[in-house]
């Protein structure tokens, strides 16, 4: 009846996951209870869960990422403590638990923190920057988000029901094959990624279409803000790379479920092919993450320097160059698998070539600052912190692209330090910069600067104190994923890294405090004009938060930095021209399709993991039926009457005029 599921799946003998699971469960039930008792459920359902508004979906993506950041961060804390204490001893985590933690940490941080964070920011901002009312496929957007949430839910479910993979975040066979990982851990891993992978692919298709097809009047390609360009590049990579991941995991699942032999030791399976395929996705993946971050920094550096982005066309070229080359370097992940010197050298050099456009970007940000009038608001601090940190990560990255150096550093703590250097210093700093920068746009009030700056400094310093010791440990021959060790020389560095982790934790606490303090002081921090940073692109041309239709009129773009031009224009011309004539606006209707579909996908995923076949069929039919119902819908749009549009827009125009006239007076 319940497949492999029985009471032994609950880890009653392991207090840590059980307590963690209980705490999470109590928190979820508490929030749900509060929502129901206070009567917020209808609001939540109509305004958020069924919303197809790209801004709402963007916010939900970022909320998911933030919650999962806490989960992944807890894993990181546990790992750092384990390696600090497990010198000549077993530490406090037995291997079967420690191995789950580092596997879950990697999986969660990449798929359920970094990905939803950048996709959330792209969702929130790109349609605004393009001057349009929504993404190309609003309902599909909602489906994408909820399927990502399903994946996250399944990963966390493994904490209390069964186990998670103990194979590392890429689940290399043959270790991940049934003979060496007979538990459900790898199945949890694979099915959560399969389901959320569909969500990511859908989001990618949606954003590519949005950028290519939905731009406002005059917004030709070379007038798009840099963030839109990096969004385009990143999502092109998603569309090209994620199917590889899906196919690879599908083959692994066929091995595990139906006795196929794609990657087994026996019967002609080839483990090297898995390496090849997973990295053919895996390397573009890191550029999928970091390109949007580059876009965010371009916006931030330009805005806070009070200048247009230096060398815009050069930046576009660099972005697209990275997009293409990132597909040609994956082999550098396994130089030590015994390929010949020609192959190693060619892929080593290809990997270095990516450093050229990346270096160009750094220099262009540098020259954007040159001659600027730099305001060090929190987003700008993250940007400068990023530039310094990312260069160091780039250096170590190029270093491991040199095959002879990689022969000594492959899989070492040096490598661990390197990719945290670029993912924290690049993607996470970018996500935080974007969060600080666009928060007022999403919620209508700014974030507290004092706590924001504290969060930056603690995170920045904490990063170095945590990861420089790992570089050193790598140079001392320490390899990754060690549950315990006996080498005395490694010990002090593990202790320093644990201390660094404490500093990083303070950074995260400051980030949470910033949110709490800002929400409490939201009236004082209110952004009335919609343009709190003296911005340059179109998202600042509408109110904060923007109305559901974003813009009352399609903005007319006449150059780069569209909104900056409009502002300059408005100051020269008379401010007192007549109010324009408003029209009705059609907007897509809300739809529970995404939520319902994800609900059935969760059931199906869980049932697949535990071999509960009747439930698999039930979930599968439910998910398909949801789509059929959606496809047969009669009405998919509703009309906002011109009068309502006018009322909403006039308030904003009034505030904005006050701002411009004040600026003019100065």
């Amino acid at each position: 009846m319940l497949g492999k599921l029985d009471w032994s799946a609950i880890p009653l003998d392991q207090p840590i996951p059980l307590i963690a699971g209980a705490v999470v469960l109590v928190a979820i039930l508490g929030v749900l209870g509060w929502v129901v008792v206070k009567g917020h459920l209808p609001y939540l359902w109509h305004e958020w869960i069924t919303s197809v508004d790209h801004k709402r979906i963007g916010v939900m993506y970022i909320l998911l990422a933030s919650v999962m950041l806490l989960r992944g961060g807890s894993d990181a804390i546990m790992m750092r403590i384990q390696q600090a204490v497990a010198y000549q001893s077993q530490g406090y985590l037995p291997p079967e638990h420690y191995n789950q933690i580092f596997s879950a940490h990697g999986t969660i941080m990449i798929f359920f923190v970094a990905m939803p964070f950048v996709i959330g920011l792209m969702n929130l901002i790109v349609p605004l920057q393009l001057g349009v009312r929504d993404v190309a496929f609003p309902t599909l957007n909602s489906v994408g988000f909820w399927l990502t949430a399903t994946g996250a839910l399944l990963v966390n479910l493994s904490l209390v029901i069964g186990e998670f993979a103990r194979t590392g975040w890429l689940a290399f066979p043959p270790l991940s094959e049934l003979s060496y990982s007979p538990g459900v851990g790898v199945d949890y891993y694979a099915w959560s990624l399969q389901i959320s992978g569909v969500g990511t692919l859908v989001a990618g298709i949606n954003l590519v279409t949005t950028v290519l097809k939905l731009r406002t009047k005059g917004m030709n390609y070379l007038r798009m803000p840099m963030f839109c360009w990096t969004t385009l590049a990143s999502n092109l990579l998603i569309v090209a790379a994620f199917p590889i991941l899906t196919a690879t995991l599908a083959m692994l699942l066929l091995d595990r479920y139906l006795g196929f032999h794609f990657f087994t030791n026996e019967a002609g399976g080839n483990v090297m092919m898995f390496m090849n395929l997973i990295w053919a996705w895996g390397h573009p993946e890191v550029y999928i993450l970091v390109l949007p971050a580059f876009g965010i920094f371009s916006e931030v550096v330009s805005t806070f320097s009070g200048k247009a982005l230096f060398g815009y066309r050069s930046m576009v070229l660099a972005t697209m160059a990275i997009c293409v080359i990132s597909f040609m370097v994956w082999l550098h992940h396994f130089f030590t698998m015994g390929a010949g010197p020609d192959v190693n050298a060619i892929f080593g050099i290809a990997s270095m070539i990516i450093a050229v456009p990346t270096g160009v970007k750094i220099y262009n940000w540098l020259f954007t600052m040159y001659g600027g009038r730099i305001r060090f608001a929190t987003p700008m601090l993250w940007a400068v912190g990023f530039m310094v940190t990312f260069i160091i990560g780039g250096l170590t990255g190029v270093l491991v692209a040199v095959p002879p150096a990689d022969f000594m550093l492959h899989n070492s703590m040096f490598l661990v330090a390197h990719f945290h250097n670029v993912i924290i210093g690049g993607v996470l700093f970018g996500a935080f910069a974007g969060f600080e920068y666009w928060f007022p746009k999403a919620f209508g009030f700014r974030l507290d600067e004092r706590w924001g700056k504290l969060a930056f400094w603690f995170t920045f310093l904490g990063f170095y104190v945590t990861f420089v010791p790992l570089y050193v440990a790598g140079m001392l021959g320490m390899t990754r994923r060690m549950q315990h060790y006996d080498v005395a020389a490694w010990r002090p560095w593990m202790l320093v890294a644990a201390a660094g982790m404490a500093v990083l934790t303070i950074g995260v606490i400051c980030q949470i405090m910033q949110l709490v303090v800002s929400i409490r002081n939201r009236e004082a921090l209110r952004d009335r004009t919609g343009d709190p940073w003296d911005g340059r692109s179109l998202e600042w041309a509408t109110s904060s938060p923007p109305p559901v239709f974003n813009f009352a009129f399609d903005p007319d773009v006449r150059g780069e930095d569209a909104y900056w031009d409009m502002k300059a224009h408005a100051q020269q011309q008379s401010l007192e021209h007549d109010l324009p004539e408003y029209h009705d606006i059609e907007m897509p209707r809300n739809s529970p399709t995404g939520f319902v579909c994800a609900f059935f996908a969760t059931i199906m995923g869980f049932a697949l993991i535990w071999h509960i076949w009747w439930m698999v069929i039930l979930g599968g039919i439910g998910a398909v039926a949801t789509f059929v119902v959606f496809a047969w819908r009669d009405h998919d749009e509703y009309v906002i009457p011109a009068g309502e549009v006018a009322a909403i827009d006039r308030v904003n125009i009034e505030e904005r005029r006050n701002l411009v006239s004040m600026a003019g007076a100065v």
Partner: protein
Amino acid sequence: MNLLDPQGPVAAANSTILVDSVFIMLAIVVPTIFAILAFAFWFRASNPKAKFQPDFVYSGRVEMVVWAIPALTVILLGGVAWIGSHRLDPAAPVPGTGSPVRIQAVSLDWKWLFIYPDQRIATVNTLTVPAGAELNFQLTSSSVMNTLFIPQLGSMIYTMNGMVTKLNLRADNEGKLQGLSAHFSGDGFPDMMFDVNVISPLSFPDWVATTAKTDAVLNEDSYKKLMQQGIEKGRPTYRLDDPRLFDLIATQHIPPGPGPELASEAGRSHSGAHDAR
């Protein structure tokens, strides 16, 4: 296990390339970081002396320089990578004094088996080699992937079941080094560290003779016992019964090692590593 304290020519060459590459890159990275901090500081809004140039958004000369600097660095490093990959290919010969020592390394769950086919002996978790001689490694795995890595001797290479990879190293100084697996292989992975005893070429035959006197015999049966999942705390040595044992493993005539036994139908599996403690 310091990578910058190499004990053989491969490690020495690798770490030289490593250090050289870092310095080549530091030559542009340090000035760039300095420029970032300096520009950020000087052009702060509160500095009245800084000249505001909002129209400085394109300069052909600057563009040329910013594309050229990283490109030139990469051309230089690319040369290093090309030459280094060829000269330091892990399978390339590393000439030494005396006759080369053939070593067939098998990664087991979770220990290392080193077979000396010419000496007809085998050791577990300890590798004894003569100083100065070329060491020809043939590598395979009894089950999952691992990587053979002796940091102070140089390059690492994967071990894979059903396949043979090659690695040539040389240890120049007598002494005791440590090696490990550098690819995660399951619950007993951290216990795959092993000792490397580099002894003088003169005493190597004595060590071989002593080891060959052991009662334990390595043949297909004892190998199958050895490849069961578990940790080996001791340092057993064997007489090698059949010098073709490695080939039998690599060609899967001896089937791959079994995984863990499933303790219960429900997902949580238990493994030998836990019981071994």
